[in-house]
């Protein structure tokens, strides 16, 4: 029984994170242990797992069963899709995108990582950095996930040896840094036994860093907004036309990046008309400043023509509009994406007609080799595309803004989501390794 404290009841922050790795790496066991050891598994769920484990002849409850969802998956012993898990500690609420390791692997990891602020990549300490690890690192880099955790699992099977861990951590960190991953935190764990997952390990005195959960609880979830371009995609125009509010005209949207303040000069794209922020309505409460990811309603000084799909930006920091987009994409549909494919492109709140003009290359994630002019991309392929849109779009580079630098392609005939796109260069240029003074002595 847990004791309830005020902390458990107060408002905390939210961290969205994803896990990458296969069943063989112990991913399901790690997730099960995070849920179990943080006391997020409730009695009836645990009993169900115990019953299922016993019926399969297993002695101990198989924590991996906590994360199996559909009957189809349980019967086949696979996971076919991203599953979302929820748990909380007194310090933070977590949303975990649990992505399967086998079928549709790339599609699912891209989906999970698109909203994640952190990715946990698992490796088996006995195998070290393998092809799959490099694939996971490349995807985290492509999706610009700000924080990466390398969990070196099964340390119990390598006698908890420091040099095994240090070698793997060094090799991985070098590779990830080269891909532009801004931050890697390596943690030696045993998910099965519980070392360094929630509780610090008694078997690895040489490790002085945080456990996985401690790191998840303390990693920053917000950024310095002064470096972000402010962007508000208009979702809906609020016009009550009531006796009380005859002239109210507000532009509703979720701030995609940066912050807006009352009095700021703004430009509406793609029209280019300008005005000033007369007021900001934060779900019924007037405020002077609002920032990402708040849902707000902006009131402007001038009565200009604005509708759903427009983008409101500070006049001093407006992106160029373009009909020609170059992007890195991950194809997620079963049918292929081909040159001259006519599609719909959804960017922010605007959906426009578009045509795939060229597919200059396909990227192999294992070794980052480029295959020129593949002609098409099939499900789970990553590639570069050139797209021409029917109308100009105010796109940002994905490296500057994950929300206004991303888009999806939709099949105009059957409505399926075809492709996930990220505007601009695939990988960030590597930055010099920063001096991580607060990192408790772990420098590689």
């Amino acid at each position: 029984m847990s004791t309830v404290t005020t902390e458990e009841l107060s408002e905390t922050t939210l961290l969205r994170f994803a896990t990458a790795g296969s069943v063989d790496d112990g991913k399901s066991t790690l997730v099960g242990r995070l849920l179990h050891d943080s006391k997020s598994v409730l009695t009836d769920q645990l009993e169900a797992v115990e019953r299922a484990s016993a019926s399969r002849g297993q002695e101990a409850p198989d924590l991996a069963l906590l994360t199996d969802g559909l009957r189809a998956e349980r019967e086949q012993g696979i996971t076919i899709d991203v599953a979302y898990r929820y748990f909380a500690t007194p310090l933070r609420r977590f949303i975990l995108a649990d992505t399967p390791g086998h079928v549709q692997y790339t599609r699912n990891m891209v989906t999970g990582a698109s909203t994640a602020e952190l990715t946990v990549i698992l490796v088996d300490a006995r195998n070290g950095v393998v092809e799959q690890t490099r694939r996971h690192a490349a995807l985290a880099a492509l999706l610009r996930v700000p924080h990466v955790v390398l969990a070196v699992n099964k340390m119990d099977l390598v006698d908890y040896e420091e040099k095994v861990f240090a070698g793997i951590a060094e090799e991985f960190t070098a590779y990830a840094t080269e891909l532009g991953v801004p931050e890697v935190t390596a943690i030696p764990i045993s998910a099965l036994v519980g070392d360094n997952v929630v509780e610090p390990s008694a078997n690895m005195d040489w490790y002085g860093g945080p456990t996985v959960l401690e790191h998840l609880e303390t990693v920053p979830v917000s950024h310095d907004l002064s470096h972000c371009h402010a962007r508000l995609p208009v979702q809906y125009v609020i016009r009550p036309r009531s006796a009380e509010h005859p002239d109210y005209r507000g532009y509703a949207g979720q701030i995609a990046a940066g912050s807006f303040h009352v009095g700021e000069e703004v430009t509406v794209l793609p029209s280019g008309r300008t005005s000033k922020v007369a007021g900001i309505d934060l779900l019924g409460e007037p405020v002077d400043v609002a920032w990402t990811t708040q849902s707000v309603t902006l009131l402007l000084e001038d009565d200009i023509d604005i509708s759903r799909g427009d983008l409101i930006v500070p006049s001093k920091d407006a992106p160029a509009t373009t009909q020609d987009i170059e992007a890195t994409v991950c194809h997620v549909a079963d049918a292929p994406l081909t040159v001259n494919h006519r599609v719909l492109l959804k960017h922010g709140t605007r959906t426009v007609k578009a045509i795939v003009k060229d597919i200059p290359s396909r990227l192999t994630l294992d070794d980052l080799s480029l295959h020129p002019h593949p002609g098409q991309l099939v499900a789970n392929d990553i590639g570069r595309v050139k797209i021409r849109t029917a109308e100009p779009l105010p796109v940002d580079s994905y490296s500057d803004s994950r929300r206004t630098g991303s888009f999806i392609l939709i099949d105009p005939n059957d409505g399926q989501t075809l492709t996930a796109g990220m505007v601009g260069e695939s990988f960030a240029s590597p930055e010099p390794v920063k001096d991580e003074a607060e990192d408790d002595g772990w420098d590689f």
Partner: protein
Amino acid sequence: MTTTVATVSEGTDSPYALSHLDALESEAVHIFREVAGEFERPVILFSGGKDSIVMLHLALKAFRPASVPFSLLHVDTGHNFPEVLDYRDRTVAEHGLRLHVASVQDYIDRGVLKERPDGTRNPLQTLPLTEKIQAEKFDAVFGGGRRDEEKARAKERVFSLRDEFSQWDPRRQRPELWNLYNGRHAPGEHVRVFPLSNWTELDVWQYIAREGIELPQIYYAHEREVFKRAGMWLTAGEWGGPKDGETVEKRLVRYRTVGDMSCTGAVDSEADTIEKVIVEIAASRLTERGATRADDKMSEAAMEDRKREGYF
């Protein structure tokens, strides 16, 4: 234990980090506004349960000071708690909303649906719901489902495509990337939309407390005549209980979920205020469906099967 609910977060985060409730609220409002912008005839499934009440509260905030551009739909099993019906009607009147009702009793009276031997009417809701959606040409249907409720729900999308029979095909669901929701659908199809996907039961209660949202009184501890069936306290009433051998007793109980009276169980509780309810939820070692829903106990895949057939 304490009953104080603190509202200020302490931690290492910058002042720009939203609290978890603010982040969840903003996400849900974004979802409501996307639907308002992209669909012709959206409707909110409104049962008078706490999740649908929170949904309506969020929708009201999303479009303020304008009115909510959606109507409400109640699938009426005919086994309603009177307190909940009363709450529904007061809410509709207060906000000037339009209410549609799909009645299970009508279908039984017309002989289209047959009463089940166990008296449970939850599985009977699917047909009236589907036919109402088709008849009214609703193209987006908001549901209060949360991914933390049940295993099959954990894989549900925020925008969940349903065919003309309302069927859910887990293999046909679209990947959802960033916050770019794809609501394209063919005529006759519709999209179920779940704005509370990422909320947990505790989040919902914390939000109800923070926003001062009124709930039907049955969510708080009260004395009630109940009898025990399948490990749950069910309310005695016209719907069919108790049977021979089941004895009625008066107990202090409250409901954690509100559904059909025939299969929604009460839990023993002394929590008669929102603060006490939150303390109880935080300390609870059972999921709300495990504790109070007979329909989910039928089989390990009960929810998966009902979702495929078009259930909420």
